[in-house]
């Protein structure tokens, strides 16, 4: 596609349920990022996939959070047993795996845990 696509755009879930958020990066981009943004706040790094190397998971806030990237393309962020504090906008970005490149962002998934 022409840009980074995220789905769903909005998700409302009950506390304790599991959710899956999807990111389709720009074709050919080997780097993929997940960030989380609470209302009016900055971007909190979650996880970074860098080509065939092991992903940097240092930003995942708890073991309820996991992410995978299949075939070097589509990525899924899974949150198990959701809590109200998980409510935020989850942003995905992709880029070429080079030193001086810009990241292209999707429009995000707004997650609300009730």
């Amino acid at each position, binding site marked *: 596609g022409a840009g*980074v696509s995220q789905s769903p755009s909005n998700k409302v879930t009950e506390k304790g349920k599991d959710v899956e958020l999807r990111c389709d990066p720009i074709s050919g981009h080997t*780097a993929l*990022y997940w*960030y989380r*943004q609470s*209302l*009016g*706040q*900055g*971007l909190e*790094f979650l996880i*970074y996939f*860098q080509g065939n190397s092991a992903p*940097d998971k240092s930003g995942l806030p708890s073991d309820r959070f996991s992410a995978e990237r299949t075939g070097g393309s589509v990525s899924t962020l899974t949150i198990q047993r959701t809590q109200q504090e998980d409510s935020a*906008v989850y*942003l995905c*970005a992709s*880029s070429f*795996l*080079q*030193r*001086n*490149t*810009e*990241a*292209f*962002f*999707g*429009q*995000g998934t707004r997650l609300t845990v009730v």
Partner: protein
Amino acid sequence: SQQGEEDPQALSIQEGENATMNCSYKTSINNLQWYRQNSGRGLVHLILIRSNEREKHSGRLRVTLDTSKKSSSLLITASRAADTASYFCATAPNAGNMLTFGGGTRLMVKP
């Protein structure tokens, strides 16, 4: 923890005035980038400045970088109401390509 910190956190100006936002960071960088975000959704890349550059221009945008002070500034000249948005700096370290974002500056341009 955030690598970059923007200052001020919020800025309100009149249309036609210039807006200056600052970013400070902590570790060495390969490049620094500025992004814009409307309505809390996806970010759009504005400009990238490499560590060996001191100043860069793009239209009404002017970015400076002072690696000795670990700081950068974004100047928007002749601001317009449509420039109202949040602006974030992001740094890419020497060791890799992961982008780390600051807390952002919320700019409001009043018509």
